[in-house]
């Protein structure tokens, strides 16, 4: 039992730090560069993101193992997963509009973009590819969400400072954000080999 717990813990750490989606798998970059300009939006986005990610990982796991595998239509995984995610995003969009209109006003456009976001789709795809169990899938979703949140928050705090920096004209804006991300990614390579699964 305890070894299973260690394994789950390792999975979360590995998904969030070692194989961080942004810095080593390069997924979700559009949103990463889009919402990392301000701390407040970054935090709101990370919370929504992690929640949607875990729920979609759970539902996709059930659909994949109970429906697609028995019917031998696993090649339809992309279509099915994207459908699940689109539905979920629509749902969380509606809930957020009711519960927290202020946050909705700020994140509205990015929330709509979540459904076309690669990380959210990548989590069920990787879960299916690695044949994770239900609990492992959840842990992987949580770890990936935390990793993305960490990346967003680091980047947002750097970019708030970067506003004041004297950057050469052609590098202003996105190019500089890319170079900074490269430097963070370089730091994150230090985590590789921390845990070998």
């Amino acid at each position: 039992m305890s070894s299973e717990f260690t394994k789950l813990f390792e999975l979360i750490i590995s998904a969030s730090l070692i194989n961080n989606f942004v810095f080593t798998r390069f997924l979700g970059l559009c949103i990463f560069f889009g919402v990392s300009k301000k701390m407040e939006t970054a935090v709101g986005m990370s919370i929504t993101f992690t929640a949607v990610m875990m729920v979609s990982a759970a539902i996709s796991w059930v659909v994949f193992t109970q429906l697609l595998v028995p019917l031998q239509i696993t090649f339809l995984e992309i279509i099915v997963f994207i459908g699940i995610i689109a539905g979920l995003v629509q749902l969380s969009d509606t809930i957020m509009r009711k519960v927290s209109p202020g946050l909705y006003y700020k994140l509205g456009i990015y929330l709509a973009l979540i459904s076309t976001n690669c990380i959210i789709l990548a989590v069920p795809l990787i879960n299916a590819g690695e044949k994770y169990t239900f609990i492992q899938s959840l842990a992987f979703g949580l770890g990936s969400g935390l990793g993305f949140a960490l990346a967003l928050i680091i980047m947002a705090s750097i970019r708030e400072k970067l506003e004041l920096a004297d950057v050469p004209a052609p590098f202003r804006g996105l190019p500089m954000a890319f170079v900074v991300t490269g430097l963070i990614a370089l730091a994150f390579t230090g985590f590789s080999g921390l845990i070998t699964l």
Partner: protein
Amino acid sequence: MSSHNNTNLKELFLNGIVKENTIFKLALSLCPSIAVTNNLKNGVFMGFAVLFVQVMVNLTISLMRNFIQPKVRLPIFMLVISGWVTVTQLMMAAFVPDVYGKVGLYIALIVAFASILARAEMFASKNSVVPSIVDGLGMGVGFLFALTVISFFRELVGKGSLWGNVIVDTKPLLIMILPAGGFFAVGILMALFNWINTRYAAKGAHASH
């Protein structure tokens, strides 16, 4: 009339390559631009996959545009896109298994490309078949061009080789093929494009004076 049409199509084609280049100008669909570009071969195949999907999606949507209920158009667009992505995925797994082994996940993630959905929504659902195909070709070639440039640069500097063939036989700058190098490469290339643009714009303004 026909010559007028031709120039329009040409402009449409160039629009996707230069003015609205997905990666360098709009900064959309960045994930694969870094993930698969550590060697030229993967970059080029990824580019062609996107080109194919973009053209086929534009074609299909444009053919269906009169039958789609506006209220459910987004789910239908997503269905069309994921259908074509599945086709691409299965074809690549069959014909270029070595490339597919490395970029497989990113091929599946073409579904989530904002740029493809955006073209379907903004262009193909409002225009007839031929302009839609040309628009798709322009966007796709622009993407292919960006991926080729990035992967060319990264493989040459990072490994001293191109398409697996050794070009420069010295100790390469290993960082460029590491994950971090991808960000540096895209950042530097974007800055270069900005610089060329401002120079070009300044020259144009100067000449008109």
